[in-house]
């Protein structure tokens, strides 16, 4: 119904306009102002080739995607059972789990990082305990390396995954599970053939959110990572803060944006191709 669609568009127009203004506006302004500094299109092109073709940027992009990918895997592995526990919990237990999940948002990144130091440091609680128990002879390197980045990012990103999965799991009709059981499926088969597929769109959405947010991380890797754990957003931030090199920052931002948008496109395709999934 073209008229109904137009009507809906008209109703949404103020919101869309506001979103455009608030979200797209600043990025557009920044990109045009920054790239404008370079002058003509051919000059922009030259700078783009030089910046994006450099080994440094390529290494940082690879690094970024790889870290975000690992974090997504870890977050998914931890988040799925936790979200499931949340769907099963009632009353006080529910509140307790929820508070634990949302705790990262009540502390500043700085406070959190010092807490990690106390816990994960060479002389931190975990190492002290393991050394004391004789499990290890040398302290484990749990921070200021890739492990630290993954621990730190997992902690911050876990809630996005859990809350996304939670709503997907809550939407699963328990009668379908019962039906599967009644048709002879074992608990594992009920999970594998019914519950998991029905929450798959939540898994994909959660993974996508985590990955996209993860790709843009710079504080946690800077605080928890080692010398080589450089992510693209850290480079962008340095170009802005240290050298005020807006054009280069803008070009790198475009790369980040391209990665994010192409992932979103993949997700969109994925969900469109599966009519069985409630859209």
């Amino acid at each position, binding site marked *: 119904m073209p008229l109904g669609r137009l009507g809906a568009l008209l109703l949404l127009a103020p919101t869309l306009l506001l979103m455009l203004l608030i979200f797209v506006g600043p990025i557009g302004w920044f990109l045009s102002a920054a790239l404008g500094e370079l002058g003509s299109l051919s000059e922009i092109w030259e700078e783009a080739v030089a910046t994006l073709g450099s080994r440094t940027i390529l290494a940082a992009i690879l690094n970024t995607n790889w870290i975000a990918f690992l974090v997504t895997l870890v977050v998914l592995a931890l988040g799925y059972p936790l979200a499931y526990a949340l769907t099963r919990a009632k009353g006080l237990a529910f509140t307790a789990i929820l508070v634990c999940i949302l705790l990262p948002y009540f502390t500043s990144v700085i406070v959190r990082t010092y807490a990690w130091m106390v816990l994960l440091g060479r002389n931190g609680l975990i190492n002290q305990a393991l050394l004391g128990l004789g499990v290890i002879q040398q302290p484990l390197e749990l921070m200021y390396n890739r492990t630290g980045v993954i621990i730190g990012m997992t902690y911050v990103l876990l809630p996005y995954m859990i809350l996304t999965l939670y709503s997907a799991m809550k939407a699963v*009709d328990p*009668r*379908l599970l*019962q*039906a*599967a*059981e*009644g*048709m*002879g*499926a*074992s608990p594992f*088969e009920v999970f594998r*053939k*019914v519950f998991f*597929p*029905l929450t*798959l769109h939540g898994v994909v959405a959660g993974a996508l959110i985590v990955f996209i947010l993860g790709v843009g991380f710079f504080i946690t890797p800077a605080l928890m990572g080692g010398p080589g754990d450089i992510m693209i957003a850290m480079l962008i931030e340095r170009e802005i803060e240290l050298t005020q090199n807006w054009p280069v920052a803008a070009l790198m931002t475009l790369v980040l944006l391209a990665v994010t948008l192409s992932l979103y496109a993949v997700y969109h395709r994925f969900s469109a191709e*599966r*009519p*069985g*999934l*409630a859209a």
Partner: protein
Amino acid sequence: MPRDSGPATTPAILLEGLTKRYGAETVVADVNLDIAPGEFLTLLGPSGSGKTTTLSMLAGFVLPDAGRVVLAGRDVSKAPPRARGLGMVFQNYAIFPHLDVFENVAFPLRVQRKPQKEVETRVWDALQMVKLTGFEKRYARQLSGGQQQRVALARAIVAHPPVVLMDEPLGALDKNLRYHMQVEIKEIQRRLGTTMVYVTHDQEEALTMSDRIAIMNHGRIAQLGPPREVYEKPENAFVARFLGEANLLAAKPAAGGAVTAKGAPLEAGSGALGAEGGFLFVRPEKVTLSAGAAPAGPNRLSGTIRHASFLGNVVRYAVELGEPEPLLVDAANAAGAAIFGPGETVTASWDAGDCRLLAG
């Protein structure tokens, strides 16, 4: 009826003293049932009567607090649903939204790890049987309610389970479609020789389809018997009222029989009043109306027409007898049948064999 044929075979389903309590409330109380192979048994009752809980205990979703569930001689009271090998059709169909029609129907075979070839043949057969071939690649949300119902049915029978349970399977369909499906379900059941336990709150459906009906009330079986028997010979007022329209004339014992509240003589072929009296039960379609006041005799009461409603094949009269309740009479709209108007004096009469005395 299969249960009457041949020598005593092992019952397909045996429920013994089945009881379920939720807190202080007893939802199912001491239910005993003995269902023969190939029988179509319906659990009929108002909502909250315990029929669905009984079915859930049979399926294994709910474990009984007391009593046993025995399937073909095997005690499965504590077994999980998957160990019972039953087919099921659920009230909401429970079609898996992430699987197409083919995979939905194939589901019971997949969990049994049947080879692909066999799966394909059986699914095709089942879809054939429910007349849904050509829809294999559709998803639930691309199907109408009736088609979803057929998918659920095909899925329930695809693995050829000896017993199929159905929980209000036609509740969501419109009247025409429902009638159609009733016939088809019955047809399939007969063809496969499946034992069927069917839950419904719709008496017409129960009467149409069942070999026997177990009418449930407050967690107990109020009466168990073939449709005709429970319809025509209800054992209590609840069953009489629940299955269609019924006249329950207040009656009290009198020398040599019973009389109405006003003292008119009654004669019934079966049943008995309680010490305190009770009712005379007669179905509206068993009552005959004739013009003019009644000559003396049992089961002959005069009164006046209060109103008449034209229902198509039947005209329903409410006759004022001076008793506490008016008498309902269904007269066939046959050729040449007399039509009475409000205020006319009539005589209502019925045979002793068509009525029954019930204790209060």
